[in-house]
Each structure stands twice: as C-alpha cells, then as structure tokens.
C-alpha cells in the first residue's frame, strides 16, 4: 500500500471519528426546528437536544446510538429498532394534516412524544406555554 494512500485513509478515519458525534449530537439545537407548518400559531417549542440525549443515556443506559431510537423511532416492518429516523424530518411521516386517519398528525406526534414522556417521568414542561415560550 502506497504511503500516500495510508495517510489519506488515516485522515478520513480521523475525520470520521471526530465528525461522527458532531453529526448526531445537535450541540447547538435549542428549539424544535420544523418547517412543515404553513403558518405558526405559537413560537417554536424549546428543546435542548443534548440535554435529552444525555438524560436518556444516563437513565436507560442504552447502547451507543440506539438511544436515538427513543425519540427518532422508525416503526413499521422493523421491530428490532435497527433503523432509526435520525435525519428524517418528522413531518415526512407525520404530515401536519394527515389524510390517513391512522397516521398521527405532526402536532400530536410532538405532543405525545414530548409531553407523554414528561408526564411519565414527572419531569419537564407539560403546559402549552412552558414549551412554546414567547
């Protein structure tokens, strides 16, 4: 193997190694970013992403990135939680106004996910204005 190639591979590996977490952790994400709504009735919900991943990792002690499945679920044929919806906008599956009544609408999806967990865990905001802070 030529030396040059080895260096290149090494550089890529290092880059990937350092970038991977940066790709999946949303260090600077403080609010839910959602472009699917034609008009916004309320301010975007407060959502410090990494606090959540940290909490989840602490609490459930899941392996590596399968923590993400906790929120970034991908239901359907995959029952093993191998596929996750990381990187897929929520609104791709949960339209604002779903045609199929069995599909959870976007707002409900968010509310069920966030509020549902907060209620269960007896922690975190549950009233409208606690998330949609002005």
């Amino acid at each position, binding site marked *: 193997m030529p030396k040059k190639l080895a260096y290149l591979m090494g550089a890529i590996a290092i880059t990937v190694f350092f970038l991977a977490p940066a790709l999946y952790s949303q260090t600077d994400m403080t609010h839910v970013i959602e472009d699917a709504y034609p008009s916004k*009735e*309320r301010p975007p919900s407060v959502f410090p992403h990494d606090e959540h991943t940290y909490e989840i990792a602490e609490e459930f002690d899941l392996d590596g990135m399968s923590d993400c499945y906790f929120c970034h679920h991908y239901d359907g044929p995959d029952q093993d939680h191998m596929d996750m919806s990381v990187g897929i906008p929520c609104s791709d599956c949960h339209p604002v106004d779903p045609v199929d009544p069995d599909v959870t609408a976007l*707002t*409900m999806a968010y*509310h*069920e996910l966030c*509020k549902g967990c907060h*209620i269960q865990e*007896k*922690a975190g905001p*549950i*009233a*409208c*204005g*606690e998330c949609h*802070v*002005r």
Partner: protein
Amino acid sequence: MHTVYIFLTGPMVWVSLLILVFGLIGKFIYLTSMAKKRDPWIFNYFQFKYAIKSILIWLVPFATMNMRRNPVMTVVTFVFHICLIIVPIFALAHVIMWEEAWGISWWTLPETVAVTMSFLVLGGILFFIIRRMKLPEARYVTRVQDYFILLIVALPFLTGLLAYYQIFNYQLMIILHVAAGHIMLIAIPFTWLSHLLLFPMLRGYVGSEFQGVRNVKDW
C-alpha cells in the same frame, strides 16, 4: 406543578363537566316535574313552534323592541355572549387538549382572533360592571353576588390572556387559568349563569303563553 396541572386538566375536567351537565339536567328535571305537579297547564299550553320562535327571535340582534331601544347594550351583549361561548370551545390550545385526551378535534380559531375575542369578553364584563355601577336602575338591584358572578366569568379569560402572553409567572398563571375555568363551569348550574338553560325554558313558556294563548307576540 406537575401533579396539580395533571389533576386539573385530567380528572377535574370530568368532575366539572359532570357537575355542569348533571347540574343542568337536574335543574331541568326538578323544574319540569315541579311544574307538572303544580302548574300543569304550562304543559297544556306549551307549543313547540311558538317556543322555538320566541327563542330564535330573542337570539337575533335587534329583533325585539327592547333590543332596538338599547342599541349599545344589545351590541355589547351579543358580542360578549358570542365570544364567551366560541372562545373556550374553539381556542387552539383547548382543542389540542381535547385531541390529546380523547382523540377528537375540530376547527380552531386563529390565535389572534381568539385573543381579540377574549379581550372582547373582558371588555363586555367591564362594560357590565360600569353599567351596574352607573345606571341607577341596574345599581339599585345589583347584589354583591352579581359582581361576584361577573368576576367568575372574567377570571378564566383574564388568566387565559395572561398565560397566553406569558406575563407574570406562567406556571402559576396557567394553573389559575384552568382552575378559574373549572370554577366557572361549576358555578353555572348554581347561579344565574344557569340562564344558559333557563333562557330557552322560560322563553319557551312565555312564547307559548303569549303567541299561543294570548294571541300576541312576545318581543
């Protein structure tokens, strides 16, 4: 916060709604059975078409002589009542909570409209309070409880707006808002707020009596 909020938006909703509905049903049964026993002729004279006509006419702005004589009061009263009923049922946040709880949802008011209408409700109450204080014939017959009832109606809207704008402590405000709403619902069967039910009942009687027996309109 969690427990209180969850209680107020959960089980307490059932409590309030049951008190409201059964309170009104109870009132209806109590009054009709009492009337059946002692004033049975009310039912002999009752005629559906006249009852409906009377109710409808009194629900149309400026359709009756006295509404035309008091245009300001008429406008305020109608705007107030319409907003009072529409806002709680169609406010976005309320509908979302119905949907979360029971999976049913319906059309919602745009937030700005709901906010404006809430201000109109408060404006209406302010008007009623000032009217009661300034107008001698209203002042003379106004009891402490009348102001109190106005306050009961005002509070859910006042706290609702404060919570919406997140003025003062939001968490406290939202709890006060929900609590005030419950107080209002529960107060309906036990105060003159029950005119929600008594309006159609009394108008039904008066309409049948006047149009049916007395051969003359009742507006």
